[in-house]
Each structure stands twice: as C-alpha cells, then as structure tokens.
C-alpha cells in the first residue's frame, strides 16, 4: 500500500477517428445555439431569448385553455384563431427573435476574433455560414414552428383539431411550410445586416429599420402617392404573413391581398436571395484579421 498517485499523464497523442467537416458544423451549430440561448452564461444573457420564446407560446397556451373550457359549446370555438391568424399574435416574438438573437450568431464571432479561429479549423467560409444559417433557422423555428405545432397537437388531443388523418397531415405540412415562409426571410435579412456590422446593437436597429421602414415606405408609395400596387411587395413586414394566408387558402385583411400569389413568391425569393447574396459577398471579401 503506497500513497503514490498519478500527478500528470503528460501529453497524449490522439490516433482515433476525426469527425471532419460534418463534425465541425455540428459543433458550430451546438455552440452557436448555446450562445444564442444564453446557456452556460450569466442570467442576463438568458433574458431576451427566454422572453421571446415565452411570448410566442403564451397565446397558444391561452387558446388551448379556451378550447378546453368551451369545446362543448361549438359557438365559442369560433373565437379561436386560425393557424394563419396565429402569426398575427406572435409577430412581436418573431421579429424580436430575428432582431435580437440572430445578430448574436454572426456579429460576435467577428467582434471577438473567433471567426479567425473558426476558419483555422476544417470549416471554410461556406461551411461556417451554412452552420450559422442552420443555427439561425433553428432559433427562429422555435417561435414560428413550435407554437402552431403545439396548437395542432393540443387541439387534436382535445378533439377540436383537423378532421381525419388526411386533414391532420395537410395542416401539419402547411404549418411546416408556413414556419419556413415566415422565418426564412426575417433570418435572411437579419443575417445580411449582421454580416455588414460587427456591432449587435447596430444590426438590431438596422433590422428593425428595414422591416418597419419597408412597411412605412410601401404605405407612402401605394396609399399616399397612389403608385402601382406592385410596390406593396416591398413590405417585408406584411409579405410573409400574406403568403401564409395564401397557403391556408384564407382571405386576409392585409393590403397586399390584391397582388397575385406568384408575385408574392417572387418578392419573397427576392428578399431572401438578395439578403443571402449580401451575406456571401460580405464574407467572401472579408479579410480575416489576426
């Protein structure tokens, strides 16, 4: 019996398998999500993401409660919103997620010089941006996909959901598409502004200015100046929700209702592609500093 113990193992070689670029992207997404949600950080970093996610689910919880209390009274079920209407209740949450959380995903890496460390790993600019895009989408889907899915499941359990299996699947697919239609353009615009500044606050302000500015500009051009109704497609605040109404075949009160669905899709792709092009050009030309 001795008191000997191993003080240090020294440096060990690693001969095992390596996970390659896929593993690097996985690690990037995991780390970026933890950072966005404030996990492993002080409490103040958790306030915004928790608040944003919470306000996206509160209406759903309220409506599920209403449904539970009034499902025996069919007339009262009419007060429940449609799946398309629900996005009107959580617009704030979606915009907050894109405005406050998405910039954290891109800006911080450049500001702290972490980008240089990432690009010294198996990641390159494309795989880095791919991983960051995945992270941003997962984050926005927590508010664009989660609550409607939660509603669908809860309504179904309370027997106030879609009729039949086919009807359920149809609604489920529409929820998936709607979540992407709402989330992708906001993420793309937010990533674009985050790609041109390394200051999160500037990116947040720029995103909100673009979203609300486009709405004000559209209103001025089409209502005050009485120009072509095609200019309504500039309104990134209204455009995604209007498309969602088209997906659910519902009439909308939004003023872009006069425009054809195909023109809405063209505008939607235009916003997304232009935003992604800004991100790519910005990163392609970026000289990574030490």
């Amino acid at each position, binding site marked *: 019996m001795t008191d000997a113990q191993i003080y240090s193992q020294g440096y060990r070689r690693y001969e095992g398998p390596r996970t390659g670029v896929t593993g690097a992207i996985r690690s990037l997404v995991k780390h970026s999500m933890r950072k966005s949600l404030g996990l*492993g950080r002080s409490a103040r970093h958790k306030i915004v993401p928790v608040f944003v996610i919470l306000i996206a689910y509160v209406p759903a919880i309220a409506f599920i409660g209403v449904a539970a209390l009034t499902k025996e009274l069919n007339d009262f079920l009419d007060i429940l919103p449609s799946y398309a209407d629900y996005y009107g209740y959580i617009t704030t949450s979606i915009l907050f997620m894109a405005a406050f959380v998405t910039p954290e995903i891109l800006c911080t890496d450049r500001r702290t010089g972490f980008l240089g*460390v*990432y690009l010294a790993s198996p990641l390159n600019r494309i795989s880095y941006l791919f991983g960051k895009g995945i992270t941003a989408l997962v984050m926005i889907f927590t508010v664009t996909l989660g609550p409607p899915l939660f509603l669908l499941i809860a309504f179904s359990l309370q027997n106030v959901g879609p009729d039949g299996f086919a009807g359920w699947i149809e609604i489920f697919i529409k929820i998936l598409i709607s979540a992407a239609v709402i989330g992708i353009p906001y993420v793309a615009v937010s990533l674009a502004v985050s790609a041109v500044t390394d200051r999160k606050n500037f990116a947040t302000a720029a995103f909100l200015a673009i979203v609300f500015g486009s709405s004000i500009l559209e209103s001025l051009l089409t209502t005050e100046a009485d120009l072509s109704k095609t200019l309504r497609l500039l309104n990134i605040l209204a455009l995604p929700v209007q498309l969602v109404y088209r997906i659910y075949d519902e009439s909308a009160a939004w003023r872009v209702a006069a425009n054809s669905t195909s023109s809405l899709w063209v505008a939607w792709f235009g916003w997304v592609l232009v935003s992604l092009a800004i991100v790519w050009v910005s990163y392609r030309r970026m000289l990574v500093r030490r």
Partner: protein
Amino acid sequence: MGPLISAQNVVKSYGKHAVLQGINFEIQPGVTGLLGSNGAGKTTILGLILGLHPADSGTLSVMGSDPWKAGADVRTHLGYAPEHHTLPPDLKASEFVEHVAELHGLPTAEARTRASDALWLVGLGEERFRPLGTMSTGQRQRVKLAQAIAHDPKLIMLDEPTDGLDPAQRDNMLDVIKNVSTEFGINVLISSHLIDEVERICDGVVIIGDGVTKASGSLDELRGTAESFFRAEVDADAAHVAKLLATLETTTPATADGRIITMQGESDEMLTQFRDACVQHDVGIVRLEKNRVSLEDVFIESMS
C-alpha cells in the same frame, strides 16, 4: 523526413498591392520562427498556410498537400493561436478549448478530456472553469496555446505568442512553447517580430521583408555564414600585450585594441593557447567571450 511546409515562388496580391512577390522557403520539423517587420507579409503567409486564400502563383505545400485545395484536411492537423486577445469574454476556458478541439474533429467526450489535459499542461488546470474575460493577458495567451494543441495537431502556428506579456511571463511562455515541441512532439511555427525570443527557442528561421524571403534555414546555417571570434579583455599594459600577441599561434592573426584582444576562430585549442600565453606573461584575463553571429546580425544583414 521532408519539409513540413515548402513555398516556391509564391506570389500574393490584394488588388494592386503585391504583398508577397515570390517567396521561397522550407520549414523543417521543430520550432521555426517567421520573422519580419510589421507589414512584411507574415499574416498573409499564415493565411496561405491555413488555406484561407489561394496564392496568385507559385507552389505552397503544407504537410504534402496544397492547403487551398485540401484546406479542411490540412487544417484538421493544424493548430492556430491568433494574435488578438479579444476572445469571447463570457466563455469558460474549458468550453473554449473543448469547442475548438471538436471543430478539429475530436468526438465530444475526447474533446472534453483533452481540453482539460491541455489546460493543465499549459499551467491553467486550476483556472480552467474561469470565463476568458476574467483572465489576464498571460493566462489568455496560455488558453490560446491550449486550444491550439488540444486536438493533437502536427503543427501549431502561434501569432505573436508573447505579445502583452511581462518579462517573467514571457520567459515562462517561451519555455512552454519549447516544451510543446521537445516534450509533446508538435512542430511549431512562430510568427514574431521579436528577434531575441525567436533566437532563444527556434531551430530554424524564415526572414521575410518587402514581400520576399530575405533568409531561411536553420539557425546554425544562418549564423555559419559569418566567422566567429573570441574577444578578451586583459589587465596588462601595451608592452605585455605586444609580447602576448607575438607568442600566439592562432590560425589567423590576433589584433589588439587597447586592452581588448580579438582572435578569429572558435577552436578550443586556440583558447588553450591564449590562456597559457597569458599565464606565461603574467597577464590577467578580465573577460573572455565567444562572439557568435547573432540572429539580429543575420536579420540586419539580410534586410540591408
């Protein structure tokens, strides 16, 4: 074993600004210093080695591969410690090192274990759960070294690794870096503009200036281009010194300047002769030093 890195006529420009105008060098295993003044092109060379951008022309090979074409594969086996200290302030050192190890392909459990080991090895075992923002510059330099070695790379590149350190921390850091090569078997490339620290720990040097290679090779090779000599200060008067010089049988004539005697060459036999002659003529030796050509001499000569 072949060179770790070889560059042949590598040219790189940004717009109209030609940063590298045909550099040539070979970096052998061990510790190598990449020396050059600010703006000489050191950062561009590191970027080319990492495959961050392609060379306009010429051939660059890193561990046998073109880093631009085989970027991910090459970078898997490279470690890199950037110059800047502005690492994510709220991230714990262990999380940072673990994340970088994962990025280089280590499975999560292995990355966690090796991150902890690496932080112990650089002397931050007790501090590994501290956020980076609460660490001193010296500690952050060590964290950067730990993240560079945690995934067991074949080569690490350290950009100004002693920047911001006080003399004691600097000495310590240089010892750790030397250990990384001699004890851990990891090759090291240090980008620096501090000649004395490169001379202290490096086996080889590449000197860059004006976008071209001014000199490269092992330290011994570079110093060997100039002759070494002994210089002695004696406590004797002119007559004694003249007698002393007359009795010396050095291969090249010794010269005297006041009480300073200079003898070309560096053989032990010559030194013994000088000592015996001093004893014979009752001349005291105040100081005796072997003057080798310093890296600074090589640097200045190559830049001139």
